[in-house]
């Protein structure tokens, strides 16, 4: 309740602050999926929301509003720009054995960074950002992905966020764009909110090569310790690829993680996903195969089959069923449905 009241007051204050202007440009208006540009200030406010229902085969059903994220961007055309993503987690929850509750709602900064553009090939980023491993982690927001469930390989073996310094940009290589990022996470003092399984320290990087307008490949590496397991150093490498054409999509990621601790198993994890558009390109069939080595079990495998409906580009309804073997802990069997909106 307190959050919604505060949000309403914030919107009213913004509306008062905005002055009318001759409509030579149309960017001052709010557009669904593009946020609200605050007239000539360089500020843009937006975000996304996601609600889901899960019905695991071997557990009670549950309903959650899992993500309510607010983007605040500042870019006034100078060499500096700022981005933050403030997320309200566990906003609403209910279940078979649980009445509707909001007392677990909390706020956390998912991302919080400043970019300094040096030139077209180099940008310096300082703050908290998404770890550049694979593609899914960099676009994991519910309105941008095709399934309610997230592949194990995209979040299980590394911290999904890093806090520190990143150098990123692109250059021409063999007449195609090669994008790169290199980062270091050596302190938590600039992490406004400690992530789940955060890095204690990490260095890593990613290369992404755009072979054509429809095909890109990526390679990632990371060398890190986790805050909760500081005695072990991990070494991770990954490959990913995505092909897309006229709403058809094929994507795949694979990672391999080793460690210098004799008792920690080396693990391979990966997935391959296909998306096929149906009538009027608003309905899509999604299929995904995943495999994941597990520290305490044999290799798990799952298959996901789902439907997605996009009445408008920023809105998606999803329905899927997941089943597999040796998957009870990391990716249990069951049905799930969700609604996500980019606003």
């Amino acid at each position, binding site marked *: 309740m307190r959050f919604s009241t505060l949000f309403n007051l914030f919107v009213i204050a913004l509306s008062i602050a905005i002055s009318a202007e001759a409509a030579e440009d149309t960017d001052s208006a709010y557009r669904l999926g*593009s946020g609200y540009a605050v007239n000539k200030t360089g500020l843009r406010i937006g975000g996304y929301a996601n609600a889901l229902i899960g019905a695991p085969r071997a557990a009670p059903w549950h309903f959650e509003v899992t993500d309510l994220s607010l983007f605040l961007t500042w870019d006034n055309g100078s060499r500096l720009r700022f981005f933050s993503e403030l997320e309200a987690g566990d906003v609403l929850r209910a279940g078979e054995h649980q009445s509707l509750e909001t007392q677990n709602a909390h706020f956390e900064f998912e991302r919080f960074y400043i970019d300094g553009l040096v030139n077209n090939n180099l940008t310096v980023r300082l703050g908290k950002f998404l770890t550049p491993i694979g593609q899914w982690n960099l676009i994991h927001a519910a309105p941008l992905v095709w399934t309610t469930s997230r592949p194990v390989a995209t979040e299980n073996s590394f911290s999904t966020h890093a806090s520190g310094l990143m150098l990123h940009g692109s250059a021409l290589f063999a007449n195609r764009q090669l994008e790169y990022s290199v980062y270091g996470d050596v302190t938590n003092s600039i992490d406004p909110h400690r992530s789940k399984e955060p890095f204690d320290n990490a260095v890593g990087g990613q290369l992404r090569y755009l072979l054509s307008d429809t095909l890109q490949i990526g390679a990632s590496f990371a060398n890190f310790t986790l805050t909760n397991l500081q005695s072990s150093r991990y070494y991770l490498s990954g490959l990913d690829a995505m092909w897309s054409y006229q709403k058809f999509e094929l994507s795949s990621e694979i990672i391999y993680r080793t460690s210098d601790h004799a008792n920690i198993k080396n693990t391979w994890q990966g997935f391959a996903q296909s998306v096929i558009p149906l009538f009027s390109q608003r309905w899509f069939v999604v299929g995904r195969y995943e495999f994941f080595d597990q520290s305490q079990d044999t290799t798990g495998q799952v298959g996901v089959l789902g439907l997605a409906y996009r009445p408008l580009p920023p809105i998606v309804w999803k329905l899927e069923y997941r089943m597999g073997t040796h998957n009870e802990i990391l990716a249990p069997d069951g049905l799930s449905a969700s609604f996500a909106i980019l606003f």
Partner: protein
Amino acid sequence: MRIVYPLLVVMLFVWLPARAIEPLAVITATANPLDTLSFDDLKLIYLRKSQMDSEGNRWIPLSLPVTDPIRRNFSLTLFSMLPEEQQDYWNIQYFNGITPPKVMASEEAVLRFVSSTTGSIGYIRKQKVDNRVKVLLLITPSADK
């Protein structure tokens, strides 16, 4: 019958959409030291992948409304896609705090903005170019899908 056939041909040329579309001029302010631009560089600017010009100024790419035929031809020519087909790409960029090119209401609005704003770049029909701006590139749009 001898009259009907030529009449039909004339009607076809008059009523069907013209397949030859006039060139579009990619324009910038006359004070911009840049004199030419390659097609590939233009593409990167309009994907917001190229953020700065050679002088270190931020590019401000301008576009026309989604329903404007000029915009649609520009999009087909540059990206082989209609504007609405790029929405997935711009959703991802929005998630990363990057906005699409600024949308101006008309070609005259583009001309006024480009002529008065450092770093701005836009496109208008070649016939609309005047001495307020200079042309970096002429492109011949693809026919409509």
